[in-house]
């Protein structure tokens, strides 16, 4: 967040600041006064346009060939029937119509929404709670922070997905512990009502990275506010709700957006844990997993492209909705 605002600030300063060296360069050669009057600030800078585009050559090739081109191509493919071998057939809105009647599509939507709506709030809740506990001058802070952060680095790997399969297996660690309390369950991964929760737990387990962002945000809250409120007799709980939370809302918002976007795109863990099927009974059929199955297992590239575009629109809509709602609860100081 801090970086987002600062980028805006420096952005605004840019033209003025860069005007100077450009002017100095050209006036040095002429040996006279800076050519102020007639040239607009942008007109005098045209000279750097060529150099800039040399620097930007890799970026431009990438932007056109790897990003923008494919983005447009997948939009076009979304309206075709294409199996990678024959030429694409234009079929209008057929892919979208098929989607509306595709039970597995709706299963994927359901699974992904549950995953986003359950795992993201839980993850952020843990992250915020531990950030607050760790914040104020605790001995060994960096040690705890490291221990909590480690899972975030490992969580996306196949190795951890393999571990998860064993932990939640029929004789895994989790069932062992539940056994002490007399609860007997079979393998979580074979049970359609439990399989998704193992992946939710896995995502919550990686709360370390939002926690680190929260910790950085907590540092920005001025100590004087707490001191002043203590003089006014505010207790611990009161201070948390009236100072910490309101001043942290921009960071909570940032974390919410980041984690939501990444949760919508979860793939690896579901693919490994379910063995690529999204089972049992499609209970872990993440949206991206279904795109993969349609596109790269069935080679139904048109349909998969249409699905990908729906995902893009949903993520964009969810992000926009968050921004709109954020005006009601995110506090940006001096308003």
């Amino acid at each position, binding site marked *: 967040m801090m970086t987002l605002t600062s980028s805006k600030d420096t952005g605004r300063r840019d033209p003025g600041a860069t005007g100077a060296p450009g002017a100095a360069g050209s006036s040095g050669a002429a040996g006279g006064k800076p050519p102020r009057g007639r040239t607009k600030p942008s007109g005098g800078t045209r000279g750097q346009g060529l150099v800039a585009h040399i620097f*930007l050559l890799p970026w431009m090739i990438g*932007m056109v060939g790897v990003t923008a*081109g*494919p*983005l447009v191509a997948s939009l076009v493919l979304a309206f075709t029937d294409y199996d990678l071998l024959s030429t694409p057939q234009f079929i209008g809105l057929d892919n979208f119509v098929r989607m509306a009647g595709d039970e597995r599509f709706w299963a994927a939507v359901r699974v992904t929404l549950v995953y986003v709506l359950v795992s993201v709030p839980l993850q952020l809740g843990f992250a915020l709670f531990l950030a607050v506990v760790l914040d104020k001058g605790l001995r060994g802070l960096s040690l705890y922070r490291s221990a909590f952060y480690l899972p975030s680095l490992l969580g996306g790997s196949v*190795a951890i997905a*393999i571990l998860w399969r064993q932990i939640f297996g029929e004789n895994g660690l989790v069932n062992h512990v539940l056994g002490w309390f007399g609860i007997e369950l079979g393998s979580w991964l074979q049970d359609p009502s439990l399989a998704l929760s193992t992946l939710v737990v896995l995502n919550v387990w990686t709360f370390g990275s939002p926690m680190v962002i929260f910790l950085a945000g907590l540092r920005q809250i001025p100590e004087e506010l707490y001191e002043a409120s203590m003089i006014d007799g505010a207790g611990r709980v009161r201070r948390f709700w009236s100072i910490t939370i309101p001043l942290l809302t921009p960071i909570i918002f940032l974390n919410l957006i980041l984690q939501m976007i990444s949760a919508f795109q979860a793939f690896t863990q579901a693919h490994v844990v379910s063995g690529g099927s999204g089972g049992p009974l499609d209970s872990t059929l993440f949206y991206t997993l279904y795109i993969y199955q349609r596109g790269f297992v069935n080679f139904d590239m048109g349909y998969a*492209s249409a699905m990908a575009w729906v995902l893009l629109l949903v993520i964009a809509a969810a992000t926009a909705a968050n921004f709109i709602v954020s005006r009601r609860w995110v506090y940006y100081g001096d308003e």
Partner: protein
Amino acid sequence: MAASPTTSVPRQVTRHVVLVVFVLLMIYPLLWMVVSSFKPSNLILSQTGLFPSEVTLENYADGWDALGSPFSLFLGNSLLIGVGSVLGNLFSCSLTAYALARLNFRMSKVYLALTLMTIMLPFHVLVIPQYILFADLGWINTYIPLLLPKFLATDAVFIFLMVQFIRSLPRELDQAAMIDGAGPFRIFWSVILPLMQPALITTTIFTFIWTWNDYFGPLLYLTRTELYTVPVALKSLVDTETQSGIGTMFAMSLLSLVPIVLFFIFAQRYIIKGIATTGIK
């Protein structure tokens, strides 16, 4: 930092107890995996403690050769792609970031906005046409589809990180160099790049860890076993689970995590700072 006067000693102690219990709860599965990798497969699930009754290196020996080729091949492939990706990102993102942060040209704002927008773009919207393109060019079962995009500045997060960093450097440095007659390339190479070291290190760490963990790319583009990276090799161990057993899977999984843990231990400062300033995971 000293404990603030309002926090009493018992309160500090309870806080530590709660935290330690929580840490243990979180880390226990990892510790259990480490210990289990040294146990005979048939004992792993029946023993949930951390003290094995029997210690063996068999899992490592079996796992190493379980896929026909020695596991060192997959580690080497992953290392090659990791290092290549790091070089690609350092090269392309720093060039791009310098131009966007320092050079003065008409489109610079538009380009930066475009770059930032691509950070939000879900990978799946691009991957199908990319696959079709790379397949057409005959690049399936080569590392080109995995490496080339890195040399074309497609990891926009790092451009953002570097732009932020370059903007924090005083412009007087550029101006001084310019007065000495240095052009943009000289300034980039001898002034900006050396000062960007922290941003370059952060980029190196995250690029390496992400490509090391990357599963989707290799899953799509690599179908021949001898080209596999570690994640896809591990997945095929899972697919042959009944023959290989839990122990070998754990052993090889642990090996695959070693580089990440090493980065975590030795470069933590940069990792923490990178997340705190850009929100990368």
